């Protein structure tokens, strides 16, 4: 095993060199990184210490993303890696890692919003909705049910930046799981200050 996680090879705090006391042990082992890319799903399982499993995702394309302010999570397709705070190389090679900013497909969230609030989300002014979409929004509901929907509509406002994102069909999200460890690429939709922060960073990178 070549990669080890021991501290024996490091110098002391005083700067002095340390002579190795013993060989590398198995419990100090390290494994090569997953470097999960975007693509049709490919996951290998690894047998770890104690007989437990780790799911090393080598390629992923779907993930469970949560819309925090609306308390809703849906499985969506990941479209592109857009920003990585640690390394621009990881953006170029489209590597999925924790805390990378990605664009995801917005349709499951839009569907949920329209059925939950009975209001269109991210539709261009003049576009005509198709049959099923019309049906979804203006479904025949009893009077009692309509009252519930009227109540919900009071809190249905979504912030304008997010609404623009829904119009394009691509929403910015941040990965919160570790694909090389659990084999999943889950995360949350960026909103509010975080969204402004990352939009600024992406813009400044593009401007360069």
């Amino acid at each position, binding site marked *: 095993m070549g990669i080890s996680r021991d*501290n024996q090879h*490091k110098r002391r*705090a005083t700067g002095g060199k340390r002579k190795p006391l013993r060989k590398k042990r198995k419990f100090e082992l390290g494994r090569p990184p997953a470097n999960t890319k975007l693509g049709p799903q490919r996951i290998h399982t690894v047998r770890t210490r104690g007989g437990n499993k780790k799911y090393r995702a080598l390629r992923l394309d779907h993930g469970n993303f949560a819309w*925090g*302010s*609306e308390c809703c999570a849906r499985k969506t397709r990941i479209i592109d890696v857009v920003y990585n*705070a*640690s390394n621009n190389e990881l953006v170029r090679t489209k590597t999925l890692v924790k*805390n990378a900013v990605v664009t995801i497909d917005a349709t499951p969230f839009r569907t949920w919003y329209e059925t939950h609030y009975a209001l269109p989300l991210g539709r261009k002014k003049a576009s005509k909705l198709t049959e099923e979409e019309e049906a979804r929004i203006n479904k025949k509901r009893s009077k009692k049910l309509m009252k519930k929907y009227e109540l919900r509509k*009071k*809190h249905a*406002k979504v912030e304008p930046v997010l609404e623009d994102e829904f119009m394009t069909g691509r929403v910015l999200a941040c990965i919160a799981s570790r694909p090389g460890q659990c084999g999943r690429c889950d995360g949350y939709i960026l*909103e*509010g*200050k*975080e969204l402004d*922060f*990352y939009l600024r*960073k992406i813009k400044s990178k593009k401007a360069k």
Partner: protein
Amino acid sequence: MADQTERSFQKQPTVFLNRKKSLPSKKKKGLRYYKNVGLGFKTPREAIDGTYIDKKCPFTGNVFIRGRILTGIVLKMKMQRTIVIRRDYLHYVRKYNRFEKRHRNMSVHLSPAFRDVQVGDVVTVGECRPLSKTVRYNVLKVTKAAGSKKSFSKF
């Protein structure tokens, strides 16, 4: 919220910043996570009111104080968010029935909650999990050095 000087968005992981505005929200003094570290240490005002984000801060971060509590005097403050303290002690030499002075330097993490720390202040530190290669302690309390009150310094 905080000073966003890093390349990723700094926030406290346990605080959800994006609650919808129209929802009836309980005004919770500006949405900040802080805790009482225990053992009778008061959490400083600055930790509760401040806007800094420090995951290694004992009051607003993800470290717990357990184990030893030591004191020392501040020696150097050149590192980012961590300082070097000096602990003096006496070592007994049996042959001569006398003591000799010895000292040890220690790197400890200094939370941004403590703003006015000068070289020479006495500092109480508590043990926590390893925060870096040499840092295992976190500053809990700063008491000013005797005679440093209202002293005129050149700048």
